[in-house]
C-alpha cells in the first residue's frame, strides 16, 4: 500500500529506531557470547533471550502497522530495478526479524533447554525435544544472524545514500519527517540552491 504522506507513520518510525537499537545490540551480544567462555558468556546469554523475545513482540506489532499504514512512494526518478531491490530487501529484513527469535526459541526447545526470560519466567517449548532438529536450528540461527547483519549494513548504506547523496527525502521519511505533510520530495532537501551552501 502506498501512503499519501511522504513519511512513515510516526509509530512505525519509533518502532523502527527502537528495533534498530535492539537488533544491532543483539547481533553484537550474540557474536560476543559465542566467542567467549568467560563470565560475560552467561551474563550476555541472560540478556539475549529476553531481548530476542522483545524483538519478536515488537515485530509482531510492527508488521500489521506497516501493512495498515503503508509506505510513502519512492522517488519517481528511482530506476525500477532499484525499487524492486528496495522492496525485496525490506521483505527479507522483516522475514529475518521474525525468523531469528523464532529459530532461537525453537532451537532452545529442541535442545531441551528452558527458555528463561528472567524473574523466574519461563516460556513453554514450541518444538519437540529433538537433538537433530536442535543442531539444524543452531546452525540456522548463526546463518540468519550473519545474513541479517549483512542486510542491515546494505539497508543502512542505502538509507544514507538517499539522505546524503541523493537527498531525495527517503531517509527523512523514516527520521524526523517532512515539515509539510504533502510537500513533494523534490522541494525539500533536493534543492540545489540549498546544497551549494552546505559544506562539502
Amino acid at each position, binding site marked *: 500500500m502506498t501512503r499519501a504522506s511522504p513519511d512513515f507513520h510516526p509509530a512505525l518510525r519509533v518502532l523502527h529506531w527502537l528495533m534498530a537499537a535492539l537488533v544491532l545490540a543483539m*547481533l*553484537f551480544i550474540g*557474536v*560476543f557470547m*559465542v*566467542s*567467549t*567462555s*568467560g*563470565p*560475560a*558468556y*552467561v551474563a550476555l546469554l541472560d540478556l539475549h533471550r529476553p531481548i530476542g523475545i522483545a524483538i519478536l513482540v515488537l515485530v509482531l506489532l510492527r508488521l500489521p502497522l506497516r501493512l495498515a499504514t503503508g509506505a510513502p512512494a519512492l522517488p519517481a526518478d528511482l530506476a525500477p530495478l532499484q525499487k524492486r531491490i528496495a522492496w525485496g530487501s525490506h521483505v527479507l529484513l522483516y522475514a529475518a526479524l521474525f525468523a531469528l527469535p523464532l529459530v532461537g526459541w525453537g532451537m532452545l526447545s529442541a*535442545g*531441551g*533447554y*528452558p527458555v*528463561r526470560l528472567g*524473574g*523466574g519466567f*519461563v516460556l*513453554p517449548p514450541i518444538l519437540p*525435544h*529433538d*537433538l*537433530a532438529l*536442535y*543442531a539444524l536450528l*543452531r*546452525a540456522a540461527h548463526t546463518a540468519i544472524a550473519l545474513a541479517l*547483519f549483512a542486510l542491515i*549494513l546494505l539497508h*543502512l*548504506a542505502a538509507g*544514507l*545514500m538517499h539522505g*546524503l*547523496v541523493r537527498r531525495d527525502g527517503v531517509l527523512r521519511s523514516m527520521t524526523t519527517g517532512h515539515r509539510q505533510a504533502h510537500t513533494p520530495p523534490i522541494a525539500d532537501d533536493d534543492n*540545489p540552491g540549498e*546544497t*551549494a551552501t*552546505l559544506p*562539502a
Partner: protein
Amino acid sequence: MPSLNRRAIGAFALIGAIVMALLAGFGWAAGWLGGRRISGGDITTALEANGGGARPGYRRAHAKGLCFTGDFAATGAGSVLTSAGALRAGTIPVLGRFSLGGGNPLANDGRNVFHSMALLLKTLDGQEWRMALDHTPIFPVADVPSFIALQRATTPDPRTGKPDPAVLQPFLAAHPEVKAFQVYMAKAVLPNSFANATYYSINAFRLTDAGGTTRFVRWQFVPEAPLAGLDKQHLDQLPRDALFQEMIARTAKGPSRWHLLLIEANPGDVTDKATVAWQGPHRTIDAGTLTIRATQPEETGSCRDFNFDPTILPEGIALSDDPLLAARSKGYSSSFTRRAAEGPHPSAVGEDLAKGVQQ
C-alpha cells in the same frame, strides 16, 4: 557542479566509514579482530585431543553414562537460604545421569577418575535446576586457561600411554593447585558404587532467601548407603562396566537415597575457586531427600539428550563469581552442539543390552 561532486565524494566516504566501523566492531565482538578469546570450541577441542580424538555422538567429557529417574522430597528447611521452589516442602520428579570422567564412552570402570551424578529438577512453573556433581569436593583447576593447559599437559604420549613428563612437570610447577587435587585423589576412597558416593556441587553459588538476603553456599548429596572403596591397586581387574552394572542391579532391588546438604560459607571462605575446600564447621541444612528409583540405558532413558549445565538455575539460586561456572556452561554447550549434529551412538550399557537381545 564541482561543489556537488565534492559533497558526493564526502558523503560516500562518510557512508563507507560508517559501514566499515560497524563491520570492524562486529569483527571485534565476534573475536575475529583483536585479542583472541577462549571459546567453547577451544575447551571441547582440548578435551577431544586429551582423549586421543573426538568420539562423534558422545559427550566430550563424562562420555560413559547411565540414566536414572526418581524424586526429590524437600523438607522445606532449605527455604531459610533460598526462595527456590524446588526446596519448598514437597516432592518433585527428578531425572539424571551417573557417569565416569573422561571422553571414552566404552572405557573401563576401573579408573581413579570422577564418579559423577547429574540432576535435573523441574518445578510446576517450568523453572529448572540442573546440576553436574562430582564425588570430589574440589576441582583440579580454578579457571579456563588452566583447564585447557591441564588437558594438554595430561594428554597421553602415544609412545608411552602416559603424559609426557617434559610437558606435565612444568605445568604442575606452575599450577600447585593441581597437586592438591592429585594428592586428594590418591588418598581419598574411590567409591565402589555410584550409590554410596557423596556428590559435590564443586562450585559455590549465591542463594537468596525470600527476604532478599544473599549467601554463598556449596552443596552435597550425602548417601544413606555406607561408603566402601574399590581396591585401587587392582582397578584393572574390574569388569569393564562393573560400576554401571552394580547400580542397575542394586536399583532393581530397591531405591537409593541421598540427603541434600546446603553448606553456608563462613566469612573468609573462598567462593571463586573450586580448587579450595572449605575447612572446619559450617552451618549445614538438610534440604531434602533424593531417591533414585529406576535406571535406564541412555538409549531408552531421557538423560542422554539433556545438557546438565550447572548454570541453569531457578530463581533464588544464582552463579557465584567463580569463573569456572561460565566455562563449564560454555564447554558443555559446545560439546552438546557437536554431538547433536553428529547423532547419538550406542552407550556401553545399551551396547550390552543390544547384544543380549541378539543372543
